[in-house]
């Protein structure tokens, strides 16, 4: 499609990856001191910054207070310079509002909100540079930020997108590949539970299973990387901590 060969005959993709290979993931927790939790994550050329405030007293309209759990409040925005073509508004359009909704939904599933009745948890994610898989990168970055904030979660939430080209599932799509087809999954890897599933593509039903399988494997791959980042962070901090 579109005159681009997304998968060469030798089985290599545009950026030289194999079909199931993930992009390089680099991350850091605790980027900012003022927030309760923060994290920066880059996955290939997509970069996101996530910040968590809370749990804290409800702000703004008290009518949103939930009496049995914490309310999760997400805002997704993109830096105006994050895309090749300059964006005019960082947030507020239909797509970003939807993305905010999806993030909220994902973290409502993963965070143990029932521990914090009547409080609010803010998760703000900013895309600094966009090259496909914005949702996944946001989820991964936000997961790290939530862990950094010490907010209890059932498990990591890892997200990844997969595409389907020439009967082959491709993992972790970049922007050029995303235009063809994409299935995004946010997974709690340990239980194999899907917190969010979204697909934008025409795909025959028979291929669905293979694609979902690929997506879940990719998510588990991401989760390994995140796990490393978290453990590294823990040790760095704890090594210096003189135990009483």
């Amino acid at each position, binding site marked *: 499609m579109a005159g681009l060969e997304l998968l060469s005959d030798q089985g290599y993709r545009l950026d030289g990856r194999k079909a199931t290979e993930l992009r390089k993931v680099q991350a*850091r927790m*605790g980027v900012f001191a003022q927030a*309760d*939790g923060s994290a920066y994550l880059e996955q290939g050329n997509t970069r996101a910054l996530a910040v968590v405030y*809370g*749990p*804290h*007293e409800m702000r703004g309209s008290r009518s949103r207070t939930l009496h049995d759990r*914490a309310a999760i409040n997400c805002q997704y925005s993109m830096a105006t310079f994050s895309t090749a073509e300059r964006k005019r508004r960082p947030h507020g359009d239909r797509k970003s509002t939807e993305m905010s909704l999806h993030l909220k939904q994902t973290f409502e599933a993963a965070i*143990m909100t029932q521990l*914090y*009745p*009547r*409080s609010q948890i803010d998760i703000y994610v900013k895309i600094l540079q966009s090259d496909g898989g914005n949702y996944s990168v946001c989820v991964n970055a936000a997961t790290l930020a939530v*862990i*950094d*904030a*010490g*907010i*209890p*979660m*059932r*498990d*990591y939430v890892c997200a990844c997108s997969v595409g389907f080209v020439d009967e082959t599932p491709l993992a972790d799509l970049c922007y050029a590949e995303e235009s063809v087809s994409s299935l995004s999954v946010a997974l*709690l*890897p*340990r*239980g194999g539970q899907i917190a969010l599933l979204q697909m934008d593509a025409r795909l025959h039903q028979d291929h669905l299973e293979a694609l979902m399988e690929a997506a879940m494997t990719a998510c588990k791959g991401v989760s390994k990387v995140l*796990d490393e980042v*978290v*453990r*590294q*962070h*823990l*040790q*760095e*901090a*704890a*090594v*210096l*901590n*003189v135990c*009483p």
Partner: protein
Amino acid sequence: MAADMRLPRVRKTLSVSESASHRRDLVVPGDIITSDTGFMRGHGTYVDDDKLTASVAGEVQRVDKLICVRPLKTRFNGEVGDVVVGRITEVQQKRWKVETNSRLDSVLLLSSVNLPGGELRRRSAEDELTMREYLQEGDLISAEVQSVFSDGALSLHTRSLKYGKLGQGVLVQLSPSLVKRQKTHFHNLPCGASVILGNNGFVWLYPTPGQQEEEAGGFYTSLEPVSLADREVISRLRNCLLALAAHKVLLFDTSLLYCYESSLQHQVKDILKPEVMEEIVMLTQQKLLEQEG
């Protein structure tokens, strides 16, 4: 005039040293701590399929049968008896709302404060009207957690002469998990200043008071200028606290004092430079280890 500009430095990636990789007490969310059903579930854990699982990233702590995971950084999870430093955010009927870095604003009831004119004085309707004269929005107080409401909000009290409104000094906000639990959180440091290490991570540095003026019931604050020498000590302590916190060193009177001593060779304003910070903290840790060993 001084402007210190530099390129950011790449963080030294600590190779996961042997000593650290053996630390089994560090867990991440979803890690199974034990499948033994004999343990009790504490903070930071949940039970999934009869297995005790961590829900936060941090250190596992065991007290008898109770297992908790203490995250490196979190909001204050108050318990009865904790000493806190907080800021008044709202004056309501018969109570103040206090920001204490908890997940909900804490409450200080009018009936839980000592009012001028005797401890056992009845609260009159007049007191309700003049609440803002005792404590108004923005004021800092030190207090103790009296009880915890069912939704997790804290009820505070200041019914002791050591608690009450705070006067001149400097507030440093840190992570509550860095504050070590001790018998007392009020310290008159030998270097010439006093500190309240609130369990909630709010640390209050103030000049050591001469003698307690007790007649005002804790609502009177002196507005006399603080001497330059005291100021220097307080500023140095403040920067030391930030340095220790940046390197996640547990805070208590000794660690703060050692850090203060190690920092003396530097100017106060230089302490916050990354390399100086690192040096001071290393020295502090050495001293702490020596003392332990």
